[in-house]
């Protein structure tokens, strides 16, 4: 017993991130894709799953998913298809979700971490491993479900969200600390916002994250038993939930306990996870190819259209800002960390003689007063 408790454990973390795409219309119909709005006002036979309705894939969503793939250096599949994922759920109009199973639109790729993406309190620590690249397994495209609200004696469902284009970005199990997970999500969000693909606001549910985490004795090659954590609703909550879960699993093993493959729910106010279901209760989704949608060929035209939308990415922008305006690497990274902020700075710098002092002023004075560039009351 005494030797067991002496073993040190390390975590293995992978994240599945769902991102709502910023498109004019929903994934398979012409209804407006808009956050908020009176409940059940953006509806049609297709997104309500009425008899006889058929899905028609949204080209803008496909283009934006390809753009995401290009920004994250994925391989874009020359051919992919949609599949039906079957399960009964009151939020799901057809009781199957149109998703992509074995032929996703984008494969592999990665997200590069950088110092400013880490939580502020660890940015100076050596563990803020700035150049680590977190590998991606895949990105696929699917439709979001509706949103239910539960009242005392009944439940209500708002179908406005049903059919919103949703990307699922699956990472490799390359993350080893809660802080890296934080940095990964921040860096990913930054790129999505840069590309205009999504506003990726976790508080609004535009970006949602399922956390997969296991621990194993340091030096062991095999993974420990995987636990999935759901209901983690902000980037900082991902860090907190992971810290809790890694400690819980480690203490459990050290006490001689065993871990079943299970899904747990994060309770942020209480700061703990509770069990939702074990693997034996897992769904059999009975995936099969969606017969209502023809297989998709990502031809040259589609690729070129996505390529034309490729923005200057954060890293390139940082390098350019530093070189063009003679500001420090640090200043350039702060300004490049937010695409709107960089635009603000460049406009201001164009009008100024001393570009570096403008950067200084914005970083030290302006950002101390506002948290969002949109809130800066004075024009550049």
């Amino acid at each position: 017993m005494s030797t067991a408790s002496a073993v040190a454990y390390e975590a293995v973390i992978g994240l599945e991130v769902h991102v709502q795409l910023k498109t004019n219309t929903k994934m398979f119909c012409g209804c407006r894709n808009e956050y908020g709005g009176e409940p059940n006002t953006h509806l049609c036979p297709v997104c309500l799953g009425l008899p006889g309705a058929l899905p028609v894939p949204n080209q803008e969503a496909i283009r934006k998913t390809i753009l995401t793939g290009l920004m994250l250096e994925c391989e874009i599949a020359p051919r992919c298809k949609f599949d039906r994922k079957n399960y009964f759920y009151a939020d799901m109009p057809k009781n199957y979700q149109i998703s992509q199973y074995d032929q996703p639109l984008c494969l592999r790729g990665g997200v590069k971490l950088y110092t400013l993406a880490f939580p502020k309190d660890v940015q100076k620590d050596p563990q803020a491993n700035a150049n680590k690249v977190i590998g991606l397994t895949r990105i696929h495209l699917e439709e979001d479900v509706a949103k239910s609200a539960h009242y005392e004696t009944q439940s209500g469902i708002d179908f406005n969200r049903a059919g919103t284009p949703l990307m699922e970005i699956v990472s490799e199990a390359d993350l080893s600390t809660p802080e890296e997970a934080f940095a990964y999500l921040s860096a990913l969000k930054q790129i999505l916002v840069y590309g205009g693909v999504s506003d990726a606001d976790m508080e609004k549910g535009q970006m949602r994250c399922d956390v997969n985490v296991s621990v194993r004795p340091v030096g062991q090659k095999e993974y420990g038993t995987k636990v999935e954590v759901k209901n983690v609703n902000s980037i900082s909550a991902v860090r907190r939930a992971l810290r809790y879960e890694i400690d819980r699993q480690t203490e459990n093993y050290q006490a001689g306990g065993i871990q079943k493959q299970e899904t747990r729910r994060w309770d942020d106010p209480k700061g703990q996870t509770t069990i939702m279901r074990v693997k034996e209760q897992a769904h059999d989704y009975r995936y099969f190819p969606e017969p209502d949608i023809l297989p998709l060929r990502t031809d040259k035209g589609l690729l070129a259209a996505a390529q034309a939308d490729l923005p200057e990415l954060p890293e390139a922008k940082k390098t350019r800002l530093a070189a063009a305006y003679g500001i420090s690497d640090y200043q350039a990274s702060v300004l490049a960390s937010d695409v709107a902020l960089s635009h603000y700075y460049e406009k201001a710098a164009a009008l100024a003689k001393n570009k570096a002092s403008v950067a200084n002023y914005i970083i030290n004075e302006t950002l101390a007063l506002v948290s969002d560039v949109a809130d800066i009351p004075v024009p550049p």
Partner: protein
Amino acid sequence: MSNELLFGDIAALRPRLASKEISPVEVAEALLDRISHVDPKLKAYNHLHPENSLAQAKKADVSLPLGGVPIAIKDVLNVKDDPLTCSSKILQGYIAPYDATVIRKLREAGAVLLGRTNMDEFAMGSSTENSAWGVTRNPWDLDRVPGGSSGGSAAAVGGHEAFAALGSDTGGSIRQPAAFCGCVGLKPTYGRVSRFGLTAFASSLDQVGPFTKTVRDAALLLEVLSGHDVNDNTSARRPVPKYTAALTGDVKGLRLGIPKEYFIDGIDPEIEQSVRAAIKHFEGLGAEIVEVSLPHTEYAVAVYYIVATAEASANLARFDGVRYGRRAQGATDVIDMYGRTREEGFGAEVKRRIILGTYVLSSGYYDAYYNRAQKVRQLLRQDFEQAFTKCDAILTPTSPSSPFKVGERVNDPLQMYLADIFTIAVNLAGICGLSLPCGFTKAKLPIGLQIIGPQWGEETILRAADAYERSTKWHQERPNL
């Protein structure tokens, strides 16, 4: 309105309407009057809305292709503000909020929509006995079934309660009842006609098509119904030919294939005789008869009941009592509500197919069933591609048996499934086929000849069928009702 006109086809009616010799309202009234006398016996219609039909007739523009022509609609298609039940209790009380694309096209062509016709529940069946609203009878013998699943549409046209009707065909649901009721039924190539607004049974197999009294009417209807639809991703971006112009009456040199696998033991000898006579008749018209082989035919029924039920198990999942349709009372939670709603709402055959489809998609069985079925489906497709290198169209019986008695097969699902043995492969291959009358049994029951064409081969099969019809008189026989 004269009986000659009432029992005639659209092609005969249209000039009289255009010349204002008779008005659309008179036509609609005559039909509604006949329906009120005949339909209590046939029970072809689930729902009629005479005032609505007459109002459409009043406004009908007779210069349009179907101006003032009354047409019946299978109760599986959405007609805005009309009930849509699919002959299922689970959709009792449901009112369709939009028009199917084919309904919009009929309206734009000036048609008068008559009513919704009975069917096997969710188009699952071959006799129209699986309907929550009762059995439709065969106009040629009221003790017998009209076929299915579009039995109501076939009986309405065969019984002259409509000039034409729309049906849907997933494995023979237009052609087999057309054969049983002595009318023409056409299943277009997959993708030719939009499925938007057609309640899905098996999405990769379903097609909407017409029932008519003559081949020339089928060509006219197909011209109206066909074309690309932005609301249906599987509808083809192909120009629509003028099908009526393809009816030249000339089949000289046309190569007609006879597949040996379709003339098997167990086929009714009277049917075989009639079909053989029809083949001879084509020879007399100058067509060239060639033997072809479709070697994987024996697997078609098995493949069909895997692919169709798998797709159906997902397509019918939406009927859950949450958003529309029937909702069971007394449930303790949402899962319990699903169970009770579907238990009460679906009939036995629908449940059987949902369970079968769920099973073949289940983890561990997917490769053995669904995946393998898709591979054999590919082989069936290749069979036809191969055959069509040697011929332009294929002739077969539409059904191995003549209309059977009501109740005769209800307890034997396998026997019932075999009623579609000659029609199923056409859906699996995604090609086109039609059935037209080619004779009668001694008991005066209609016999259907199936003409199968390649993908987009509608002009060829319509031309062949029309040439046959012009030189025979089967289509002029009338049931005694």
